[in-house]
């Protein structure tokens, strides 16, 4: 759980950095260049197989953990402590993760799957920048993306710190540092992602 989670965090860093190239507002030139490299480089494509495997593993582990833990208290409390003893998002990783999964299905169906399908069928890469620009003209798409980013943010506020705690690294000396970096990460990365659909929708870039 923690190792696959950290791998997904690393993926987010790369993904966010590449996509943020759109903010140069150069008609997508720098972005397309980076996306082309990511889409055709042999090493990157190999890592991509690992990423898919890790994502699936993370989901299977997560759902498994969720179901297993639910079975450990057959008779539930009539009155439960709720937010008095823990924050809602720390108890809701399974729900947040499942929302992310729904988002990921929509998201990959929009960009990743069509692009790879086009490459495999010999038609080459799709013009991803223009695809993004077109997609984000629809209000509902923008809203789905923003909800996805907010979900990601809460999943990471707990997940970032939690993975270090699980690996035994959140010791007395480092726990505040890890928690601090985790919260900063959980705010900044989803925020940058959320700005992308907004920037296209409101024509801050074109």
């Amino acid at each position: 759980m923690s190792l696959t989670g950290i791998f997904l965090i690393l993926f987010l860093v790369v993904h966010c950095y590449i996509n943020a190239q759109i903010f140069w507002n150069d008609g997508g030139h720098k972005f397309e260049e980076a996306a082309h490299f990511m889409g055709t480089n042999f090493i990157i494509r190999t890592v991509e197989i690992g990423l898919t495997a890790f994502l699936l593993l993370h989901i299977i582990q997560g759902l498994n953990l969720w179901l297993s833990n639910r079975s450990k208290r057959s008779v539930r409390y009539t009155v439960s402590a709720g937010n008095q003893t823990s924050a809602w998002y720390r108890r809701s990783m399974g729900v947040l993760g499942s929302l992310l999964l729904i988002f990921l299905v929509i998201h990959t169906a929009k960009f990743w799957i069509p692009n790879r399908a086009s490459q495999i069928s010999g038609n080459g890469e799709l013009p991803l920048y223009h695809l993004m620009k077109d997609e984000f003209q629809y209000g509902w798409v923008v809203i789905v993306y923003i909800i996805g980013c907010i979900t990601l943010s809460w999943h990471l506020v707990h997940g970032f710190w939690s993975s270090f705690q699980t690996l035994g690294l959140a010791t007395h000396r480092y726990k505040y540092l890890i928690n601090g970096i985790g919260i900063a990460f959980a705010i900044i990365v989803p925020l940058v992602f959320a700005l992308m659909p907004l920037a296209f929708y409101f024509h801050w870039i074109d």
Partner: protein
Amino acid sequence: MEHYHMNLTLKVWKQKNNNDKGRFETYQVKNISSEMSFLEMFDVLNEQLIAEGKEPVAFDHDCREGICGMCSMHINGRAHGPWHETTTCQLHMRQYKDGDTIVVEPWRANAFPVIKDLVVDRTSFDRIIQAGGYVSVNTGNAVDANALPIEKQKADEAFAAAACIGCGACAAACPNASAMLFVSAKVSHLALLPQGDPERKIRATNMVLQMDKEGFGSCTNIGACEAECPKGISIENIARLNREYLGAAFSGSSNE
């Protein structure tokens, strides 16, 4: 604070034995003093029930001074009631006011089966201790305390972990019914000291194995255990247990 009296409505879990489904019973208690402890209030209830020819409520208690860990009660959704770092016996009725309704449930976790009413079977904790929560190497006669040099910080951390009274509030409060805080406290106070060092790997492995066998859930670092622990055991101990466990797994040190 002003001394006062109150009348209360209690909704208490009644369950004949582990096979019984159990249900809530509603009782009225009158003229309860704000100076009483929560358990004394239950004594008043039970005397009243006995006088009425009814069956008293079974509940666990022993020291009534916050050190034995027996007084397991889940009060209005909180393990040991709402006070921070406090056992049920140390919770006082000044927390409540006239006319309040209080719901009292047993610890609920499959690894803590109900014996009767509010009494649960916590021998799963004993079996976890039996799996490794001890020192079996020969440490010789008691030596002068200062003969073994131990860093002040380590001694303090070991002492803080050793404060665990095995009450089970951590597992009772955990949404996953995980016993990690308890196990981590027991592993920590030994792992930090030279006497516990030789067996630290086998200890961590075996205790975690036994915890899983007992049917406790897996820790997802929610933190409700730390919030409810009457002895203020920190979840930093869970990070230490994870480190001990992973270290043992990677160095190939296994059970038995």
